């Protein structure tokens, strides 16, 4: 069984500890046969949150093919809690920016981001979303990096990145969520004070 297992870029043996999949709290057996769970609210909420990240379909070019492949059965990001992709920002927690952001697309991306409910996360996938990639020089139409439009949590280099890279970025995002605190999130929209770099 172990020999035929296809892990697809994920170290299954160490996955439990790598992803911090362990139960977020202590289970204390009570005298009457029941159990008492002792945990922090942050830990319990983040535990649920990081394992139910629904991403928004946002594929603007070839990276989207790799993103689809990451969702397809061979790599299958549903295994790690990225259950489904949604076509509406109202139901999404995460944008995976898979592709080039042009000057014309930028306001659309910003509006989609604004329409998403808190908490929301962004992964910039591929060279174009990170920095403009091959269009960095001599392009009249391409935004040099999606972080000129919305704040980005995790960057994935590559042109396009392999599904393993995207999976790794998703784990990084999960690790980031683990360390989050509700107290910090309240009244702290990530877009507030965000520098779009529009002033030269």
């Amino acid at each position, binding site marked *: 069984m172990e020999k035929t297992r296809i892990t697809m870029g994920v170290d299954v043996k160490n996955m439990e500890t790598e992803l911090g999949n362990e139960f977020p709290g202590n289970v204390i057996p009570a005298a009457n046969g029941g159990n008492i769970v002792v945990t922090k609210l942050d830990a319990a909420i983040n535990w649920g949150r990081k394992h139910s990240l629904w991403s928004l379909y946002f594929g603007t070019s070839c990276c989207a093919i790799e993103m689809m492949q990451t969702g397809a059965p061979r790599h299958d990001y549903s295994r790690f809690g990225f259950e489904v992709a949604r076509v509406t920002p109202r139901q999404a927690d995460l944008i995976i920016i898979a592709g080039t952001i042009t*000057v*014309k697309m930028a306001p659309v991306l910003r509006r989609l981001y604004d329409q998403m409910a808190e908490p929301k996360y962004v992964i910039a996938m591929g060279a174009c979303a990170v920095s403009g990639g091959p269009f*960095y*020089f*001599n*392009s*009249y*139409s391409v935004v*040099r990096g999606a972080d000129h439009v919305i704040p980005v949590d995790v960057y994935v280099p590559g042109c396009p990145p392999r599904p393993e890279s995207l999976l790794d970025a998703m784990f990084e995002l999960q690790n980031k969520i683990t360390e989050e605190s509700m107290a910090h999130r309240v009244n702290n929209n990530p877009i507030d004070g965000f520098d779009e770099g529009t002033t*030269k």
Partner: protein
Amino acid sequence: MGNTELKNIIGSWSENLTFVEEGSEFLIVEVPANELRDIAEKLKTNKDTAFDYLFSLTGVDYGTELGIVYHIESTTHNHMIVMKVKTEDRETPNFDTVTDIWAAAYFNESEAYDLFGIKFNGHKNLRRIFLDDDWKGWPLRKDYVDEFNMLTR
């Protein structure tokens, strides 16, 4: 029909045509701007040529000249040709439209206008189709400058 026969037929229509041999697959004919419509119409209506399908229309900036390149095919004879037209007028480049001959040119001419600023006389709805309506300048021209959005090297 082979390129040599095409050359003979089309060459007999006007004295101002130049044929370019670049070792390419298609015969290339350069047409003066004032005869463009005339030649285009003949290319379509002449029974021996019968070019009824425009499969590409592209704007080109040659550096000093602006031009349009037409790739045309005949679905009956199965032959193809490349027609080129150029102008040195960079301020108001102006060609006659071929939309009434090949309807496929409708969007392609808008595209050439959008990116190169080449206008087409008689085009019914010439507008910016890719860029924003308030875009300044013609971005695919060699001398296009955008200091804010464009990093050059």
